[in-house]
C-alpha cells in the first residue's frame, strides 16, 4: 500500500511519522513517501517562532481546542526525554497583554500556572492594563523538522524533492492514499476559496537577556498584528504583522520599521539588540482546519485523499492532535479496504 504525503512542513512530517508509527507493523506492505518542493529550512514552519499558543478565543471550535491540548500534552511528555534538545523543545514563561479585561482563554488549563498579571507586573508594560502569565512550550521547527526527518528516514520513509501538480499525478503512479499537507498552496491542488494567506514578517535579533515571551493583543488590529517578542534558543523573534490576502513572500522595509518600533516601545532594552535578519512567510489561514477524507475518482477506481491543511498561525500548536486525527482517518480507510480482517490501530 503506497501512501504519499504532500508537504514537508510541520504538518506533513508529523502526520507522516504518526501514520508510520501506528500502522507500519499492522500493514506490512505500507510504503510511505513524502513529496515536497520545499524542505527545511525553507518551509513556512521554519520561520515560525514555534511558541505553543492558540488564539485567545476558539470561537466555539472545541475540536481544535482538543487537538491543541493533545499537542501540548504530547510535547510536555517529551520535555524530560534526551530527545528534547534535538527536537528544539523547551519550556518558556511569559506574558499576554491587553488594553482591557478579557475572558480567560480556552487553553488556560492546558498551559502551566496560568494566572492574571499583578499590578506590579503591569508596570512593566505601560499602555496595557490587563494580562496573563503562564508557562508554555517552544518547539523550534528548524530543529524539529530535521528531527522528524531523521525519525522518518530511520523508518525507511522515502523523500522526493518534487512539486506535485495534481492528486491524479500521484494516483497514476500507483499511490493508494494521498495525505494533503500542502499548507498555504493547497488551492493549487484543489481550489479552496476559504484558504487565504495571512502574510507575516519577523525580525530575528540577538537579545539573550530576554527570557520571557511577550504577546500583545489589540482587538482592533486583529491577531498577530500587534507586537510580539519570543525568545528562542538562539535568537529572539520580533513580530506583529498579519496581512490577510497578501501573497508576497519578500521582506518589506515598512513592515520591518513597524515591527522594530513597536517592539522597542514594548521592551526598551531591545534597542541594543543586534539585528540578524528578517523573514516573511504566509500563514495558511482558514475559518477552520480542513481535516477530512475525500474519495476521488481515478479512472475506474476510487482513491483516497486525507486533507490536513489550513492551520493558520497555530500549526505548531495544533500539529500533533491533527496528525493523530489524520492517522485515525487513515485507519478508517484501511478498515474499509479490508472488511474481513479488522486492523486494530493503536490509539
Amino acid at each position: 500500500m503506497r501512501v504519499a504525503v504532500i508537504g514537508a512542513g510541520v504538518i506533513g512530517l508529523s502526520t507522516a511519522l504518526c501514520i508510520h508509527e501506528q500502522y507500519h507493523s499492522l500493514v506490512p506492505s505500507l510504503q510511505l513517501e513524502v513529496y515536497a518542493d520545499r524542505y527545511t529550512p525553507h518551509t513556512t514552519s521554519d520561520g515560525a517562532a514555534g511558541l505553543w499558543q492558540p488564539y485567545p478565543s476558539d470561537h466555539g471550535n472545541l475540536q481544535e481546542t482538543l487537538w491543541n491540548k493533545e499537542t501540548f500534552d504530547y510535547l510536555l511528555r517529551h520535555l524530560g526525554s534526551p530527545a528534547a534538545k534535538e527536537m528544539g523543545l523547551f519550556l518558556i514563561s511569559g506574558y499576554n497583554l491587553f488594553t482591557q479585561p478579557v475572558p480567560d482563554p480556552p487553553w488556560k488549563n492546558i498551559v502551566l500556572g496560568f494566572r492574571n498579571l499583578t499590578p506590579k507586573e503591569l508596570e512593566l508594560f505601560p499602555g496595557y492594563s490587563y494580562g496573563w502569565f503562564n508557562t508554555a512550550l517552544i518547539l523550534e521547527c528548524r530543529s524539529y523538522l530535521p528531527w522528524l526527518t531523521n525519525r522518518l528516514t530511520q523508518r525507511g520513509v522515502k523523500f522526493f524533492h518534487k512539486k506535485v501538480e495534481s492528486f491524479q499525478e500521484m494516483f497514476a503512479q500507483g499511490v493508494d492514499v494521498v495525505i494533503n499537507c500542502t499548507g498555504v498552496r493547497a488551492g493549487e491542488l484543489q481550489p479552496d476559496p476559504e484558504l487565504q494567506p495571512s502574510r507575516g514578517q519577523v525580525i530575528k535579533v540577538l537579545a539573550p537577556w530576554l527570557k520571557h515571551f511577550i504577546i500583545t493583543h489589540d482587538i482592533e488590529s486583529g491577531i498577530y498584528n500587534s507586537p510580539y517578542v519570543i525568545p528562542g534558543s538562539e535568537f529572539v523573534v520580533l513580530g506583529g504583522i498579519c496581512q490577510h490576502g497578501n501573497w508576497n513572500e519578500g521582506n518589506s522595509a515598512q513592515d520591518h520599521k513597524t515591527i522594530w518600533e513597536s517592539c522597542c516601545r514594548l521592551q526598551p532594552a531591545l534597542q541594543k539588540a543586534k539585528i540578524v535578519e528578517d523573514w516573511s512567510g504566509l500563514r495558511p489561514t482558514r475559518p477552520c482546519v480542513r481535516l477530512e477524507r475525500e474519495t476521488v475518482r481515478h479512472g475506474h477506481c476510487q482513491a483516497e485523499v486525507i486533507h490536513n491543511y489550513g492551520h493558520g498561525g497555530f500549526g505548531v500548536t495544533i500539529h500533533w492532535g491533527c496528525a493523530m486525527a489524520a492517522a485515525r482517518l487513515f485507519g478508517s480507510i484501511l478498515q474499509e479496504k479490508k472488511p474481513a480482517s479488522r486492523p486494530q490501530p493503536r490509539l
Partner: protein
Amino acid sequence: MAAPKVAVVGAGIVGLSTALCIAETCPSCSVTVLSDQFSPNTTSDVAAGMLIPHTYPGTPIHVQKQWFKETFTYLFAISNSAEASEAGIHLVSGYQVFKNAPKEELPFWSDVVLGFRPMSRAELQKFPQHRFGQAFTTLKCDCPPYLLWLEKRLKATGVQMYTRKVADLWELHSEYNVVVNCAGIGAHQLVGDEKLFPVRGQVLKVHAPWVKNFIRDGDGLTYIYPGIHRVTLGGTRENGSWSLSPDPGATKDIFDRCCSLEPSLRGAQDIKVKVGLRPSRQSVRLQREVLSQAGVKLPVVHNYGHGAGGFSMHRGTAKEAADLVGECVAALQGSSSRAKL
C-alpha cells in the same frame, strides 16, 4: 573641611554599589575605590546574582525586608529601561521546589518578587521527587556586566578606582577622612573579624541557551539559574572551607543533581567551573566604628558579611552605609568647625 575624602575598600558588588550610593548622596565627597581584585576576579563574579534572599539569623526580618525591597525596586527600574542589557539585569521566572514542607509557607520576600504563588499540581509533576513548590518571577544580575556597568557609572561621577591591597585600614588614615570597609571575605584578615567565615561555593557555568526558567531546590544546595549567555548550575555550601580550587568530585555531583531537576542539561556544552567564598556572618556588619591611634581618629563604616545574600541586599545595605558615611562626614565637619572656634 574641603571635599571629604572617602575610601571604599573592596570592588565586589557591595563595594561598588556602596561607592555609587556615597557619590549619589554626598556630591561634595571625593570617593575612591581601592581593591586588590576587580571584576572578573571578585567573589561577586562567581555568583549567579539571583535576587532570592538569604535570611540572616542575627538581623531583624523587617530590616532585611527593607534592604531587599530597596534592591529589588532599584534593579526593577533598570531592567525595564534601555540600559538593561548593558547592566546585565533581567527578569527570570521559575520554581523553588521542596522535598519536605518548607519551614515557612510565605517567606518574608514573597510580596516583593513578582507573582509569587504555590506551584500547581501539573507543574509539580515535572519534579517527581519534590512535593511542594513555589513559582515566582525575580531579577538576576549577571556579572561581570553588572559590575562593569557600576564601574562605568562610578567613573562618570568622578570616582577613582585603584588596584591596591590594603593590609590594614589604619594605613589609609593620612590619605582619607572616612574609610568604608566592603572587603567581603577579605574582612577576616583585614579587620580580624572572627565572626566572619567562608562558606565555599562551587558552581558550573554552562552553555544551555534553551533553559529559560530557573529551578531551585528549597534546600539551597541545587539550583539552575539562566543568565544572559550561560546557565549557572550549583552548588555547594561548605562551612569553613577556604579552598578556591575546583573539586572534580563536586563538579560531577553538581551536574548530576541539576540534571535530575532538568534532564535537558545533559546536552549542556562548554562547562566552566568556578569557586567563590561566601563572606558569611550571623548578621551583616553594617555599623560605624572609630579607629584611633595617638590621638588621631579615623571614622570607619563597615558593610560586609552578606554571605549568600550579597546581590539580594546590595543596594539596601549600600544606601544605609552611605547614610552612615554622611553621619561620619557631618561629625567631622562639626568637630572641624568646633576646632576653628
